[in-house]
């Protein structure tokens, strides 16, 4: 069944694999899974994860809403313009107040450098805030949140804060 070489390897393994330094006991294993009944999953993990997600969303929304209300004008909801990653949006000045205010583009999902380019081309200042907080499905260096949110009209030269997770 085994060829010569395979047989030699099998012999070698049986000879060379050492005896374990200590045995395990059932108590150790049961202790590690204390609180879990056989046949059940850890019952607390899902609610805890869900609660954590809710807290993150709530905090983000609250922060965004704070910036929104502090902004100069209500956001024109219909004009949210995602910035394509290949070509930056042309600077769109808000009608009626030329060169005085701009509509904040969507930069969530762009790499930090691209987000900075897009915003600076519109005359906006950029503040990059790095976060060590784990964000669901986030990749390091990719913008996950921005203040003010896309679509908000802000004075030109306003500062847009982008939140970027770091590894």
């Amino acid at each position, binding site marked *: 069944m*085994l060829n010569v*070489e395979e047989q030699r390897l099998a012999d070698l393994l049986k000879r060379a694999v050492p005896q*374990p330094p200590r045995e395990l006991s059932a108590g150790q294993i049961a202790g590690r899974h204390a609180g879990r009944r056989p046949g059940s999953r850890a019952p607390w993990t899902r609610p805890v994860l869900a609660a954590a997600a809710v807290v993150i969303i709530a905090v983000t929304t609250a922060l965004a809403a704070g910036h929104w209300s502090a902004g100069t004008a209500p956001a024109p909801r219909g004009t949210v313009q995602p910035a394509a990653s290949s070509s930056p949006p042309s600077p769109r000045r808000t009608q009626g107040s030329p060169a005085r205010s701009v509509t904040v583009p969507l930069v969530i999902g762009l790499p930090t450098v691209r987000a900075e380019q897009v915003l600076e081309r519109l005359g906006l200042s950029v503040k990059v805030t790095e976060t060590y907080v784990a964000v669901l499905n986030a990749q390091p260096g990719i913008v996950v949140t921005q203040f003010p949110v896309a679509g908000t009209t802000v004075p030109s030269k306003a500062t847009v804060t982008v939140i970027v997770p770091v590894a």
Partner: protein
Amino acid sequence: MTESPDFADFVRRRSSAMLRSAWLLTGGDWALAEDLVQTALGEVWKRWDRISGMEAPDAYAHKVMVNTFLRWRGRRWTGEIASGRIPETGAVAGGFGQVDTRESLRRALRELTARQRAVITLRYFEDRSEAETAAIMGCSVGTVKSQSAKALARLRHVPGLADVLTGGTAC
């Protein structure tokens, strides 16, 4: 939480064999091996009602262990060292005797991928057939064959093992 006496007995009988297989899987790391066996036995314990009635709870426990190990890839350090060349060893030409077999083996294991280590462990340490190995790993017999061939090809070039495998100076 009363622990079944059956399970305690199972652990006493099987933990040593599982630990030795885990030593191979983890590339000769006892700490990681113990962690692996404990995790696998934990899974077995959770479903002990069903598993204890099986024909071969031992085989099932090994299956859980190998699959747990393969799932660990990427999530944990598996002892793989990406390296284009095989590190120098103290082996002198033609002389295997000076190199400790165990150290050579440990070094050799780390040259293999996780799947190759799993195949080697199941096929040559636990003496399972290609079909059994394939069933445990959830892959085809062809994959088992190709993985073991690749593993052997790699081991053949590890100083210290080469002699043993080619029958030079088997100690």
